[in-house]
């Protein structure tokens, strides 16, 4: 490592809102070298974001205090300087970008002004000079028409462009260090690849040092020089990327690497997949035929004309009993709309959905009754999908009662369901608030299983979870599929998870299916360039399998 530009020594951050004070950062020491990208890895609550906030002097609560240690930058201790001096460190020495550009950019201020703001304040520049400087920076981070886009507002851009705007604002005063807090977590894989490429490019051109906070080891493997792993406020391991990935010393690091979904499935997992493929070819449980779903957008009696957005355009799909199908695609590709239409939650414009031979359009009452009784959905945000006032037991009891389970059998069934999802029986008395994300999602799955469903639709059900928890939930699905002969429609933007869980996959793009087939085959030999781009954009944990040259995924040929 080259000369460190930032050294953190024995930093301790405590929360003083309780007695005794709780230690959230526990004696962390870390160096950031000039021009290097340091990956800071850990799960939610590990203290990785808090560590960076401490460096910036932006602790999120007044009850949080730096109790010991130092943060040295240019021979000054950032924990000791006053707030006026700190203003000139933030923005000028250290820039920061965040996970969610939509909420961190000011919605009522032009993006150019948000970039120019720092230049005007820090460098005392005139409005004109700040503007020309901001336009130059916007161009640098990849705005195609910065002159005009200076005057645009954040909502006029896509998520990827918003993240570029945030990078531009963070870099406006030419900081030496950029802290990127989960900068690509909210983005599609292809956009993620572009943003990561931009960060590496900026590092090379500007000699920037970057601290990249992420939970995705694949991102780290592809971009970073060194890796630091945090857990429960402590630095458990750090070192050069290849050495650390090849030979992790700490058990927790090994578990993180083991949980990463881009590793090929082990032989054990592949057995049931084969078996499942053999047992199908009976009759389709779910048949979707030339399905169209449209939404009204705007149009009024004065401006005239009804405008519609076609979210799903002619999708046909057959799902056999016991099959696990992954539906993948970028945001806006229509995968969630498809799922909702199958369950009768979105109005169908044309086409057919038939569940177990009953057509949803022709016999809506009968089909809906059966659909709702025999299918279940698992949602993306496990905490918000559960009633906060109900205990897990109440939630399950409600479903069981509604399904006509005799009262005497309900307590037994609840215990059975909790066993199925590996939750302790005491969880029956707990409310979602006192449970972790993974435990909530298990409760959500238990609720789905309570109706003895023949089909489960899981909509991005692991996207909000930490990697190790993701792996547990995916393993749980794999186990349930095997034990209960479940049919599963698994919607995800994470291709690696689909690969490990699903035997067949469907790739959607702009409301259409552009590719489908057995998962192994699609991954090995994608027919569409679009699918190939999507696969290539997934950051692999092996640093020697680099991201392909990032670009917007090529739109597919006419299917």
């Amino acid at each position, binding site marked *: 490592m080259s000369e460190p530009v930032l050294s953190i020594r024995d930093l301790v951050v405590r929360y003083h809102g309780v007695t005794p004070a709780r230690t959230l950062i526990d004696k962390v020491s870390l160096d950031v070298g000039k021009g290097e990208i340091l990956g800071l890895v850990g799960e939610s609550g590990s203290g990785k974001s808090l560590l960076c906030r401490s460096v*910036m002097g*932006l602790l999120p609560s007044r009850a949080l205090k730096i109790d010991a240690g130092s943060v040295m930058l240019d021979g000054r201790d950032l924990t000791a300087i006053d707030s006026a001096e700190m203003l*000139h460190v933030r923005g*000028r020495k250290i820039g920061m970008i965040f996970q*969610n550009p939509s909420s*961190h950019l000011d919605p009522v201020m032009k993006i150019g002004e948000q970039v120019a703001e720092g230049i005007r*304040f820090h460098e005392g520049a005139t409005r004109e000079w700040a503007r020309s400087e901001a336009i130059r920076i916007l161009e640098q981070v990849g705005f195609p028409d910065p002159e005009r886009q200076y005057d645009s507002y954040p909502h006029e851009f896509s998520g990827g462009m918003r993240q570029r705007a945030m990078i531009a*604002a963070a870099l406006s005063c030419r900081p030496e260090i950029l802290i990127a807090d989960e900068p690509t977590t909210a983005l599609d894989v292809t956009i993620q690849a572009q943003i990561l490429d931009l960060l590496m490019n900026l590092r090379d051109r500007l000699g920037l040092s970057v601290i990249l906070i992420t939970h995705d080891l694949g991102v780290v493997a592809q971009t970073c020089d060194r890796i630091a792993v945090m857990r429960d406020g402590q630095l458990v391991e750090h070192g050069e990327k290849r050495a650390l990935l090849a030979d992790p010393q700490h058990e927790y690091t090994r578990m993180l690497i083991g949980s990463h979904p881009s590793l090929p499935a082990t032989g054990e997992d592949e057995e049931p997949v084969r078996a499942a493929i053999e047992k199908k070819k009976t009759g389709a449980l779910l048949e979707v035929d030339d399905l169209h779903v449209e939404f009204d957008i705007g149009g009024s009696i004065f401006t005239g004309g009804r405008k519609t957005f076609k979210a799903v355009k002619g999708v046909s799909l057959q799902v056999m009993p016991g099959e696990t199908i992954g539906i993948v695609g970028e945001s806006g590709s229509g995968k969630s709309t498809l799922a909702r239409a199958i369950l009768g939650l979105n109005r169908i414009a044309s086409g057919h959905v038939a569940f177990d031979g009953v057509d949803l359009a022709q016999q809506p009452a009968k089909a809906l009754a059966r659909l709702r009784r025999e299918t279940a959905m698992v949602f993306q945000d496990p905490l918000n999908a559960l009633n906060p006032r109900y205990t897990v037991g109440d939630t399950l009891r409600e479903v069981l009662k509604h399904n006509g389970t005799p009262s005497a059998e309900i307590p037994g069934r609840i215990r059975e369901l909790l066993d199925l999802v590996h939750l302790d029986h005491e969880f029956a008395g707990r409310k979602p608030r006192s449970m972790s994300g993974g435990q909530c999602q298990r409760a959500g799955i238990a609720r789905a299983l309570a109706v003895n469903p023949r089909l489960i639709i899981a909509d991005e059900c692991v996207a909000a979870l930490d990697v190790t928890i993701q792996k547990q939930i995916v393993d749980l699905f794999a186990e349930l599929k095997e034990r209960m002969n479940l049919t599963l429609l698994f919607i995800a933007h994470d291709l690696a998870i689909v690969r490990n869980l699903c035997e067949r996959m469907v790739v959607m793009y702009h409301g259409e299916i552009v590719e489908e087939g057995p998962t192994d085959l699609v991954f090995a030999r994608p027919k569409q360039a679009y699918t190939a781009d999507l696969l290539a954009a997934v950051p692999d944990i092996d640093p020697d399998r680099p991201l392909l040259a990032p670009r917007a995924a090529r739109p597919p040929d006419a299917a």
Partner: protein
Amino acid sequence: MHRYKFVFYRPLQLLPVLFGISVITFILVRMIPGDPARVLLGTRATPTAIARIREQYGLDEPLWRQYFYFLENLAHGEMGKSTLYKIDVLKLVMTRIEPTLMLVLVSVILSILIAVPLSTIAARRQGRIADHAVRIVSTMGIGFPPFWLALMLIIFFSVRLDLFPVSGYGRDPLDKLWHLALPSLTIALSLSAVLTRSLRGAMVQALQSDVATAARARGMPEGIVFWRHVLPNSLVPTINLLAINIGWLIGGTVVVESVFAIPGMGQLLIRAIFSRDYMVVQGVAMVFACATVLINFMADVITVTLDPRIKL
């Protein structure tokens, strides 16, 4: 500038609203027990005299025909003749509209001048003494009834200190403002309390928002963070609350105008109701309705200007 397209077609939506209001007030006013002719002539009027007056004002015609005449008059820019004042209602309203308009305008300006600084102080010192003080004062402002506040202000400022007149409305602009000081303060104390609560809440949220955090991470001092990011992002809900309250206020000036004896629309309305002056009640209700619609329209224009995401 297609976002401002609504400025051209929104006034068209006023037509059905006004039609509905005219029908409802027309029917409601005539459902009040009592007869304008009888009120006009006193208790000892002869049946023939009453019949003559009823005929003169068209009160003997069937309801639908009376409504038709009303619409016909409206098309000619008239609102019918007041039974009490014997002149056209529109002319009558015009003589009374200025004091009310001034009262509302001064009250609103005063409310904003009170609410914005108080919210700013409270939000930026959240949880400290200044914040608690502002919250207690604004809760009290909501709690006190305006007529009581008005009497207290008169006792203190007019009777004790002899700073402002007890009642009435002046002649030249400055004199008018001087007369309006206490009435508008009465209204502003209640109105600014409502606004402060809303604005303080929005500011507290915006101060903790990701937008503010990102600005601080760029090294912006708290002052810039507040004026350039927090304030613009917290104004929109309060603007709409203000618009709703102004609509309520236009009707609500009745009480304050009575206490301070201001010759405005509120006073006119009260006298018209007591003397069953149908045409005046109708006319005043229509004017109030138009004003409310207009205020909300203005609020929409301001909202669209403040928040580029909003499309109407």
